[in-house]
């Protein structure tokens, strides 16, 4: 499963005549040998997933191309699809140097929305943590993701030091990071518990984390849909969170999640009410009530727009 699968490209490719499939139908030596039992298969360096090389995407030609993409077609697309309202960029006015932007995640449009919303000087020197198994599952998809979004592969299926080292090296080199601590898009409209990646990197690199809340993108193109539906989205940037001395990653991750939760409250009510609830520990949760599926859907209330279907007075006969 990957982005190519979601967009239907895999099905189309299967229907086309394939020289590779024709070769595979032949026997050795026209096809690769099988590996006998009891021997180690020869090591073939991987070129997809977490092994995908994205260094080229941070060189000047690729950066120029990406800047043109972001400021041109991507901004136009976001404006048409999401009519975004952006709040809280003034909270970043004192920030300098690389930062980690940690946002909730509902839709494929989130990254485009954020890349066109994050203010300078971070906007054009930022990498996006993207699922290695999803965006970098094939060479073509990985190339597109790295070039268009500045994506870097992040392992989410298992705990791996490799992608963390890679991201930390980029942050130390002056690049900011956009990451979705939930690890993937929301499956049902509610958020998911934040993982510790953003907090770990903030502690390791000593950089602040900017919590970001996105509202409305799930209605535009939620998980499972292949065509977007124009709507309106709100991006709310929170005050930067700096790791305290001696703070551990789980605690920092909880602070980041709490900050995004408070921003969600702020986006749906008003700032002062949200601050009062935040101080009282009553901001609610991103993850929704831990109850049955229908009750979780019910509790979403107006948060998810019901897909409009053509009403039919009579069944087809």
């Amino acid at each position, binding site marked *: 499963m990957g982005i190519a699968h979601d967009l239907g490209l895999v099905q189309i490719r299967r229907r086309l005549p394939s020289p590779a499939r024709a070769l595979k139908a032949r026997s050795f030596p026209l096809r690769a040998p099988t590996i006998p039992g009891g021997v180690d298969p020869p090591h073939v360096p991987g070129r997809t997933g977490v092994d995908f090389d994205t260094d080229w995407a941070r060189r000047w030609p690729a950066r120029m191309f990406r800047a043109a993409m972001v400021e041109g077609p991507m901004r136009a697309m976001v404006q048409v699809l999401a009519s975004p309202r952006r*709040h*809280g960029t*003034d909270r970043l*006015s*004192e920030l300098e140097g690389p930062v980690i932007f940690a946002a909730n995640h509902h839709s494929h449009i989130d990254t485009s929305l954020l890349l066109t919303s994050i203010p300078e000087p971070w906007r054009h020197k930022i990498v996006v943590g993207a699922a290695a198994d999803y965006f970098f599952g094939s060479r073509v998809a990985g190339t597109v993701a790295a070039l268009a979004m500045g994506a870097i592969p992040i392992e989410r299926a298992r705990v791996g030091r490799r992608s963390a080292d890679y991201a930390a090296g980029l942050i130390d080199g002056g690049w900011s990071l956009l990451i979705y601590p939930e690890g993937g898009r929301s499956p049902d409209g509610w958020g998911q518990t934040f993982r510790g990646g953003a907090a770990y990197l903030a502690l390791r690199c000593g950089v602040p984390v900017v919590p970001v809340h996105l509202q409305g993108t799930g209605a535009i193109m939620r998980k499972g849909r292949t065509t977007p539906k124009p709507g309106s989205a709100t991006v709310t940037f929170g005050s930067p969170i700096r790791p305290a001395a001696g703070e551990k990653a789980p605690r920092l991750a909880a602070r980041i999640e709490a900050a995004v939760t408070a921003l969600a409250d*702020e986006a749906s009510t*008003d*700032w*002062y*009410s949200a*601050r*009062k609830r*935040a*101080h*009282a520990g009553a901001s609610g949760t991103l993850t929704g009530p831990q109850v049955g599926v229908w009750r979780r859907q019910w509790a979403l209330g107006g948060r998810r727009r019901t897909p409009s279907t053509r009403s039919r007075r009579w069944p087809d006969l």
Partner: protein
Amino acid sequence: MAVEHRKAPRPGLVMDVDRSTPPILFHHGEGFRLERLPPGRSRIIYPAEPLAGLSDPEAAIRDALLNPLDSDPLPALLRPGMKLTIAFDDISLPLPPMRRPDIRQRIIEQVLDMAAAAGVDDVHLIAALALHRRMTDDELRHALGERVFDAFAPQGALYNHDAEDPDGMVELGRTGHDELVTMNRRAAESDLLVYVNINLVAMDGGWKSTATGLADYRSLRHHHNVGTMLNSRSFMDRPRSELHHSNWRQGEVIKANGPPIFQIETTVNNNTFGYDGPLSVLQKREWEWSARDRASFMAMHAGLKAMPPAACRGVFNRWLAPYEMTSVQAGAVEPVHESTTANVLAQHLVPVQDQTDVLTMGLPYICPYNVNSVMNPILVMCLGLGYFFNLYRGRPLVREGGVVIMSHPTRWEFHPVHHPSYIDFFEQLLAETTDPAELEAKYEAQFATDEWYVHLYRTSYAYHGVHPFYMWYWGAHALQWLGRVIVVGGDTRAVRRMGFQPASTLSDALEMAGDVVGPSPTITHVHNPPILMADVE
């Protein structure tokens, strides 16, 4: 401004003019003039370079709120169920309006965050504008930020002070000098009044914040009058300002009968036009203009000359100053203001020896009362003879009987929405007399109580009917002190209507000044803005 100067800003400078001194920049409304001053007998006072801003303003604000002067920390003053009012300075501060985030937003967000932590529900925010025009929603949004505006304005908890609301004012008592003290009812009946101030000049802040900003005409008339102005030397120097003495007496009444006050005062540096960018040349010394500075100045000058005045005004009104906060202090009014004043003077004060025969000044496009508006002739007078003339400590820069030469277009134009009573004041009253005392005695009460002006003040965006009188009074000390006032490049009719003399060029003006102060007078030019205050020995 070079980076090394940003780290170690140079103090103000008094420079004698010689033959090698380049032409000097004079602000001239929405334009500029480059003028040569006579060598050998002229000097120029340059303001100090911008002091370094606070490296972490948010932390400094928090520290001030938690460690106030002569007061409990702010969180200790907040409790559930209390009535909290936050008053703040209006559109007249700072000048020009500053870039986001405005200082008021930074402070009020932190105050509100503490109030939220304490569970305070009943919070009102009031623009303390006294008799100024109301702030528009956009202006409030700019000053307080989106979050505060969206949280309070829709429910009617963020609004402008209304000094003419018959039910909205209360009398707190009278001073020992029989001065009535009034205050906005909501503020007066609060369990805590937090005042958020921006100090641009030494006149601002202290008891003037609450005793003036939240008062009405009945209270203001005790210090906004000709006698007070004539007895202030100057109103920028609080110990020698009768204006402030009156405000401080009213402050005593507020302390005794009014709400507890938690005062928060801030100061900004002189970074009015930015270290880089198109206007940065305006805060550099002329002989330090680089080729790039000269090119940008010439382009700007030529562009402005080619544009109609309204378009020039539009360009300048869009300028937002990149001010940096240099200090923040909170707590009881008096100790806070002492500290604030010291910080203001650290930026503005320039020691100057001896007075001068002729004082020249280039008046810029903005004063406290024409933000997003028109600089009408009365405001030109107020800026030149009120503010710039009074920016001294000790003695006036110009000797008694001397001459002030101001450079400004002084167009006969008014903003009909913002300044309706100014039009009548200028066209009717000044045609009869320009004597502040006579105007005060004969017409002030009539304008102050005119129902139409009151209606416009309350429901439109008009300055109060009495406001042009105050502007005229602001120049009363200068009018009494000076032998002549000359306006270079001004509209002849408008200049004469105010009792001043028009001149086409600075040379002509200096010739005309010679008739009053004699041949070869000494000349001093104040290179303002950025703001400076002369400490005259």
